[in-house]
């Protein structure tokens, strides 16, 4: 889709709301389901990548320095990374905005 979801009118939809653009589910901001966000502490992080392996959303990525961080556009705040982290480098904090 050329427009963001919030700007699509009923006239823009294909017949029967058929999706003709493959892979456009990546435009879906699953991050807005989140009530808590993961904070990554680089002092405790040993760069093992267990958080990335366990993330059910596939939204944890390694940055240029080798540390891990969640892409908040997709992160649903499930807390699995924090639970699995061997060194407790990840803390879940409430979204307050």
């Amino acid at each position, binding site marked *: 889709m050329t427009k963001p*979801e*919030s700007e*699509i*009118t*009923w*006239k*823009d*939809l*294909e*017949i*029967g*709301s*058929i*999706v*003709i653009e*493959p892979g456009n589910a990546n435009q*879906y901001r699953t991050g807005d389901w989140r009530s808590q966000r993961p904070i990554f502490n680089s002092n405790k992080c040993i760069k093992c990548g267990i958080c990335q392996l366990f993330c059910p959303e596939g939204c944890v990525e390694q940055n240029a320095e080798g540390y891990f961080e969640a892409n908040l556009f997709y992160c649903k705040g499930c807390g699995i990374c924090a639970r699995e982290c061997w060194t407790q480098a990840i803390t879940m904090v409430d979204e307050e905005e």
Partner: protein
Amino acid sequence: MAKRIGIEVSLAIADAAKLADVDVVAAYPITPQTHIVEHLAELVANGELDAQYIPVESEHSAMSACLGASAVGARTFTATAGQGLELMHEVLYVASSMRLPVVMTVVNRALSAPLSVWGDHSDVMAVRDTGWIQIFVENGQEAIDNVLCAFRIAEDEKVLLPVMVHLDGFHLSHMIEPIYMPEQSEVDQFIPPYKYPLPLNPDKPVTMGAFAPPIIYSETKMAQEINLRASKKVILQCWSEFGSRFKRHYSPVESYHSEDAKVLLLTMGSFSETAMTTIDRMRKEGREVGLIKLRLWRPFPFKEIRQAVKDAEVLIVLDRALSFGGPGGPVCSEIKAALYNEDKKPKVVSFVGGLGGRDITADGFEEIINRGIEISQTGSEQEFEMFGVRE
């Protein structure tokens, strides 16, 4: 030139689907629809109809298979009745929302319990809001004509919506009637080939029936609603062209001796034929009565209904279904809603009758009309009156 033949209406409907050259039939047999799908199975098995007949394990599967077939671009037909229609229920919404032009004859049957295989309109009323185009027919000729029209309407690129053709169980489905069956060449000219614009095709993938978050769901429903309402124009064009080709004419609301009538009766389906006999008889006695027959149930013909009844003093609506604990007859409540804001409108009286195959005779319709006039004068504390019920 079309031949007039004596044939059971159900068999004629199957033959009409054959004339429309359907590609896929997925159906589950249920009384009183059985003869339609049996005959189609026979036509396919005998090699007379080049189609896939999919015998499924339930009506839910029947409609699901129809969706898949329609989505790849196959002309798709099915038929059901009563409980079968209810078992299809959730899939009916999917057909209309995904804009898949399945054509289905519904052989109207009462709903359980107690079990009844006989006709009324309780199955129809339960699927009223499924987003299908819905047409009622009175006799065998109208049934086959409208099955043919249904394919053309459903598959029109401006419509692409599923269509139900409703006919009364037994009272119509099992009658042997004289019917003009059009020639194959006439039907071929009348129904253009079906071409779905975005079919399921591995070479050009699309996603059908994806989920819609709250930010987009309202837009999908608005598109669907606008589309169903707009289909009326195509339905009218289709009936008009059918009329010029085959000399049989259909319209959303049909009138019988209603022009100067002070009292109007409104019916749907095959009971209208008996009601016409009553109108003839009462007219001979000098009574100013007339009949309104509602053919197009969805999209609802607001303008035509208002026009047809505006000069009458009393409008008596016969429903063959009950909205339990509600306003009485579901058709009547829609008529009332259509008229409520009009300045000039008749008093509307609601009757429910003909449930579960109970017949209403010509005398019965006269009783309904007389009692309706009485209620219009005296008023009633009840939302509706049930005709012929033993007290």
